[in-house]
């Protein structure tokens, strides 16, 4: 029973924002966790505590608070290593988030390893963050971007994969979970197919880290990216994990302080991995918050959470389907707490605005997945997405609100 192992009421109390109201007293029902998750007190306090008591630049100083900040920074690296079950802590690189992690690989690894005539493979359900950097790489190099088609239920066309994994494919980059559909991809199987053919793989974990247990060794990928802000952590920090040998062979991405061993006007010798990829003063307070977020998240019973999310999705889906002209986009059973829908004849913006007026925050639009939506023949969807704090009651309120909006618009 989820109620026993996941005390949602107690969890909610840890999130200050969940007690606020909007539009003159309507309690906030936050169903936009896929865009960014809310933050528990312990994460906010970790950031506050860092600034109030330990703030200092890292790596560069011998004084006490600099040593404290550096210790925290490197301890967070270990925390991430354990969170991803990576073998080495120096395989963890701090970035601004998933987007920067993918750009780093597309630029640093891509410029070195991709040439004219090569192919990059992605899936048909990628976020723009996992499309545009590869497109930019392909343009620079004269390479081609291909994608695995998506089936009508929102799952990948697995039968098309072997044919697409040609000799020319140098990189196969795939989302773990679709931010629009909620679909969970079998990244283990996909990476295995690529590995057999000697193809480098990257997994976009932006939407999976907050729902699934992550194990990069088990997945068998070469790169894995995520953002702290989707994992109940702070904005402005995320991670790139990569296999040591691959990272070690990569040239730096940005140049500046910390990432160098020795600088002369004649030339520069770069630092080892991961410092080589962390130019400049990093988001130190972000690491304090990320550490707190991972530790906090680690206390949750992920199985109970999964069960709870499934129940939320089922209830929401069943309720929505009562509405005339309702179309759920993404109906594969293997999905996380995300429900996308369109209602024929009605515009998503209208629904979003009328829900907001009732205190309910959902997202409407293309969710940075234009090509995916095009394959479903729609330009936008309404998306309700759930987190550890989402309750059954909120789903019911959401359904009442959608029905009211539909009545007003028809």
């Amino acid at each position, binding site marked *: 029973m989820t109620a026993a192992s996941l005390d949602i009421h107690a969890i909610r109390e840890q999130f200050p924002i969940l007690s606020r109201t909007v539009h003159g007293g309507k309690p906030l029902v936050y169903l936009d966790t896929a865009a960014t998750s809310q933050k528990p007190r312990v994460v906010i306090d970790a950031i506050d505590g860092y600034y109030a008591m330990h703030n200092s630049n890292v790596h560069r100083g011998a004084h006490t608070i600099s040593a404290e900040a550096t210790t925290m920074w490197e301890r967070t690296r270990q925390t991430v290593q354990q969170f991803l079950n990576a073998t080495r802590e120096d395989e963890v690189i701090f970035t601004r988030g998933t987007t920067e992690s993918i750009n780093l690989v597309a630029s640093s690894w891509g410029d070195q390893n991709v040439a004219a005539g090569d192919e990059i493979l992605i899936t048909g359900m990628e976020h723009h963050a996992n499309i545009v950097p590869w497109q930019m790489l392909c343009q620079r190099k004269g390479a081609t971007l291909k994608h695995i088609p998506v089936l009508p239920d929102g799952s990948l066309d697995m039968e098309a994969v072997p044919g697409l994994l040609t000799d020319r494919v140098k990189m196969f980059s795939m989302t773990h979970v679709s931010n629009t559909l909620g679909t969970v991809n079998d990244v283990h199987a996909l990476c295995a197919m690529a590995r057999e053919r000697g193809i480098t793989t990257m997994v976009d974990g932006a939407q999976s880290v907050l729902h699934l247990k992550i194990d990069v060794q088990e997945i068998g990928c070469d790169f894995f990216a995520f953002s702290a802000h989707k994992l109940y952590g702070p904005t402005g920090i995320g991670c790139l994990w990569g296999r040591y040998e691959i990272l070690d062979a990569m040239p730096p991405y940005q140049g500046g302080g910390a990432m160098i061993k020795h600088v002369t006007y004649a030339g520069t010798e770069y630092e080892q991995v991961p410092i080589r990829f962390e130019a400049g003063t990093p988001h130190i307070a972000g690491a304090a918050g990320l550490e707190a977020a991972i530790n906090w998240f680690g206390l949750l019973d992920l199985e109970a959470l999964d069960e709870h999310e499934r129940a939320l999705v089922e209830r929401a889906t069943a309720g929505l389907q009562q509405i005339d002209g309702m179309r759920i986009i993404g109906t594969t059973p293997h999905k996380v707490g995300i429900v996308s829908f369109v209602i024929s004849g009605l515009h998503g913006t209208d629904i979003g605005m009328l829900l*907001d007026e009732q205190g309910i925050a959902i997202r409407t639009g293309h969710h940075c997945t234009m090509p995916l939506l095009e394959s479903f023949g729609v330009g936008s969807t309404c998306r309700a997405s759930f987190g550890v704090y989402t309750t059954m009651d909120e789903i019911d309120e959401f359904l009442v609100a959608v029905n009211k909006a539909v009545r007003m618009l028809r």
Partner: protein
Amino acid sequence: MNAQHAIDLLASELGQFEDWEDRYAHIIALGRTLPPFPEEFRKEQFLVSGCQSQVWLHPTFDGTTIHFDADSEALVVKGLVAILMRIYNHRTPQEILAVPKDFITTLGLDTHLSQNRANGLASMIKQIGLYAIAFSMRGAASSV
């Protein structure tokens, strides 16, 4: 009726509703009063950029005042467009540029008119202002 008068009228019109449903029903109804948007203007260049829901805006200048045609596919947005038209349409460029922006708060439209690309009404107001500047420099009657 000058712009300030139009704003005052809108304020009392929208202020009469006790609950949000009636208010929105009225906004949606206002959208239905918008004259049909001439189909020949439904071109990429008259789409207000930066809006998630498509908003169309076409200006015609008779040498004195600017006449706008405007439209949106979303009903609430269309109602908000109608509100903007009551404030800005058929005015001289100078009148348009003189409209104080605090009407957004006066009419309780902050959420919708914030710096938000989702419904793009802020972009629409900006675009109206740009047209006013352009026409005030050209002077003579023209369209785009």
